[in-house]
């Protein structure tokens, strides 16, 4: 069975400071890794994904994540955060399976301090 652990439930960070949101996964089969963002009172939006190839993936708004197979991690980073990044971030895995379900972590709330 697959599982996702997000080590921090909340991360406060000052505006323009760097941030890292941690994610570890467990799986006995190959996984595909995702980060989703949920802004207040909204649904989920895909932020970035790792399917294959380069282990470093980037989003259009400055986030990046690196797939580390040996450490079973997929941490999300941004070198300089903005107030608009205030949201909840979910790490997720998918596997090749009949039911095609997405397994989410519990989420990390990013709180930007002025």
């Amino acid at each position, binding site marked *: 069975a697959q599982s996702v652990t997000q080590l921090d439930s909340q991360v406060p960070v000052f505006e323009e400071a760097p941030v890292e949101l941690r994610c570890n996964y467990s799986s006995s089969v190959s996984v*595909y890794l995702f980060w989703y963002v949920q802004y207040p009172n909204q*649904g989920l939006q895909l932020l970035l994904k790792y399917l294959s190839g380069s282990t470093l993936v980037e989003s259009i708004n400055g986030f990046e994540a690196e797939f580390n197979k040996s450490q079973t991690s997929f941490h999300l980073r941004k070198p300089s955060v903005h107030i608009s990044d205030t949201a909840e971030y979910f790490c997720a895995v998918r596997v090749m399976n009949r*039911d095609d379900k997405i397994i*989410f972590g519990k989420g990390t709330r990013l709180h930007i301090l002025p």
Partner: protein
Amino acid sequence: DAGVTQSPTHLIKTRGQHVTLRCSPISGHKSVSWYQQVLGQGPQFIFQYYEKEERGRGNFPDRFSARQFPNYSSELNVNALLLGDSALYLCASSWGQGPMTEAFFGQGTRLTVV
């Protein structure tokens, strides 16, 4: 193009009642999945339908049921509502099966059971 649309956006039900939540996928998408997001937690997989066939069911009681119609829209039904069913219910659609196909989420239906 319209995204995934869910209705209603909010509703309040009494314990023991029945509820039906509706989801219209993005045009051309044949797969619909349902997730339950309890406050402070990540979304949990409930059902997945592809081409009107149930492909997966999460660890939810039989009070939860769903179906997909010929136009690929979907309904989630919950009988004998409990206080613990209070949550944000998310629908996701994708054009096909598998992790390579991006899942797009609706804004969700917030169900409150009193």
